[in-house]
């Protein structure tokens, strides 16, 4: 059960082009599983920015000196995240979590490939530790536009059997997209399960490759959300259900983790005409 906590900032640090914030927020850590997210209010009590910002949980600690903490990674790309980047230790911050459906773990040890793009890599480390505890082999593939936008390469290297890095400009690792190196990695490491988190375009490419190899792929999507708790209906995407029917589902409640092959990738941003309840005349309005 998620809780709303008026916590406070414990620390804020720069990680390359990103920021990692740790909040003292009792009640969240205990129930957090890999893939869960938090929804953070920005701007203070009188703010004109009403919508919460959703971030994957990077790490939690149930018992620190100050009680439970939760850490997330963000990139400044608007007024809300700029406000977050300007916080100081002890500043109050209102956070709701843990939210969403987490990653599913294999029952038996399996060979897992974790694919991250940019700071989308953040939730993969809790996942990696959980997989390792189950005796899974972990390989990492991380991609970003530039070296300073790679997140957690060192941590991935320590945790994984192997690490592949790509950047768009070649400033670190191989030049190109992370999806470019996947087929080779999957073959070489005899990968059985793929987990991915990052931009939608990357997730789609990763899912396509996993489909070619006929192996299960779980993706944590990044859809823009207003509330994070299931009431605003803005973070929907077309997803095929167990019954074979497509519905516009909330990524905050039924996601953010989905089986990659259930998402109607080509139809993102639209309501496919065969969606349950789609308008009879057109699928685009």
């Amino acid at each position, binding site marked *: 059960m998620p809780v*709303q906590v008026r916590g406070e900032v414990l620390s804020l640090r720069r990680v390359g082009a990103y920021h990692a914030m740790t909040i003292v927020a009792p009640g969240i850590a205990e129930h957090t599983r890999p893939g869960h997210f938090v929804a953070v209010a920005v701007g203070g009590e009188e703010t004109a920015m009403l919508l919460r910002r959703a971030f994957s949980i990077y790490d939690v600690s149930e018992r620190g000196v100050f009680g439970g903490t939760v850490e997330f990674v963000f990139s400044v790309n608007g007024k809300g995240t700029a406000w977050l980047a300007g916080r100081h230790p002890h500043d109050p911050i209102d956070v709701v979590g843990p939210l969403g459906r987490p990653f599913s773990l294999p029952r038996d040890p399996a060979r897992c490939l974790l694919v991250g793009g940019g700071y989308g890599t953040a939730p993969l480390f809790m996942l990696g530790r959980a997989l390792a505890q189950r005796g899974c082999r972990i390989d990492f593939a991380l991609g970003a536009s530039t070296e300073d936008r790679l997140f957690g390469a060192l941590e991935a290297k320590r945790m994984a059997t192997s690490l592949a890095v790509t950047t768009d400009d070649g400033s670190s690792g191989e030049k190109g997209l992370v999806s470019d190196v996947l087929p080779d990695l999957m073959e070489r490491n005899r990968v059985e399960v793929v987990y991915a988190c990052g931009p939608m375009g990357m997730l789609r490419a990763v899912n396509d490759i996993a489909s070619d190899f006929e192996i299960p792929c779980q993706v944590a999507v990044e859809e823009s959300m207003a509330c994070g708790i299931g009431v605003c209906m803005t973070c929907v995407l077309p997803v095929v259900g167990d019954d074979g029917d497509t519905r*516009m589902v909330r990524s905050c409640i039924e996601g953010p983790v989905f089986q990659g092959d259930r998402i109607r990738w080509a139809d993102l941003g*639209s309501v496919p005409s065969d969606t349950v309840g789609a308008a009879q005349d057109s699928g685009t309005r």
Partner: protein
Amino acid sequence: MTHTSPVVIASRAADAPTPDVDLVTDLAGVTFPNPIFTASGCAAAGRELAPYLDVAGLGGIVTKSIMLRARAGRPTPRMAETPSGMLNSIGLQGPGIDSFLDNDLPWLHEQGARAVVSIAGSSVDEFGKLAQRLRGRKGVALVEVNISCPNVEDRGQVFACDPKAAAAVISVVRRNADVPVFAKLSPDVTDIVEVAESCVRAGAHGLSLINTLLGLAIDTTTMRPVLAGITGGLSGPAIRPVAVRCIWQVHQALPEVPIIGMGGVRTGLDALEMLLAGASAVSVGTAVFNDPGAPARILRELAEALAHRGVEHVSDVVGLAHRAPEQLVPEGADPLGDEPSVEQESSSLGQRERTVSFDHEETR
């Protein structure tokens, strides 16, 4: 090191007892324990808010608009943050009334919540069928008729923009419903009083004011509208003065008709402002996105604000701004500003005694 412990603010136990003010509110003969409701489209059917507040502790849960059949809504992006507000273009996505009656309504009833069921049809006939389906269902306190959703393809479909079309919908709902009927109106009209009067003549027991305002935001990077649906409904504190104005005008014209006020309420004082304008109850909408526990918090704040002002019954302040002479305001207290300090409060105690003897007949 001075370290203040963070507080878990949203659990049922944290819903602190409210000061000793009678908060009971009557809407067309239906009694609610307090005047703070959720707002349609901002609380789903209540269940999603259960981790953050006690749904039975609010006056009522106003559901997201229920339609006859499942509806997928509009494409994404459906949302744009705007100054002190947001645009939404959801397009009435929902599973349809069968699912609502099978799952959501029984859950609300089990919790002890009072459901104000918002219904939306694409034809007059559909509204009638929806009202019919709600007959005899346990837990339904009121029907709120959403004739004002701006997120439809055809502006001509916004019944609330036309007094005759609005009346046609209300009269068919009135014939089919077995609970009081509230018409939810749009502020996007030249004369909201005309539409309100038409709805009341057609049998509406009360009015819900206001739905969102039609708006548009353009992304200056892509140079295209932000929303896939191009236009969207503007909500949040940005529209509160519009809501207060609409409530004021309609209450002035129809003082006997109960109003549920909504539009940008974020604090207990915001809710009080709407009551003073003439609302008998207040729905909290977009504030929930910012603070899931907002309705419960606003209820506490309202009770405290009323206690500070020496008000014994919340019904005493309904529409009070239309008639309260200046001296009725406790000395030193800005009615829409901060709470009076303790000193100001004690120095004006005698005055506040006189303040509360209002004309009950007039305030209903």
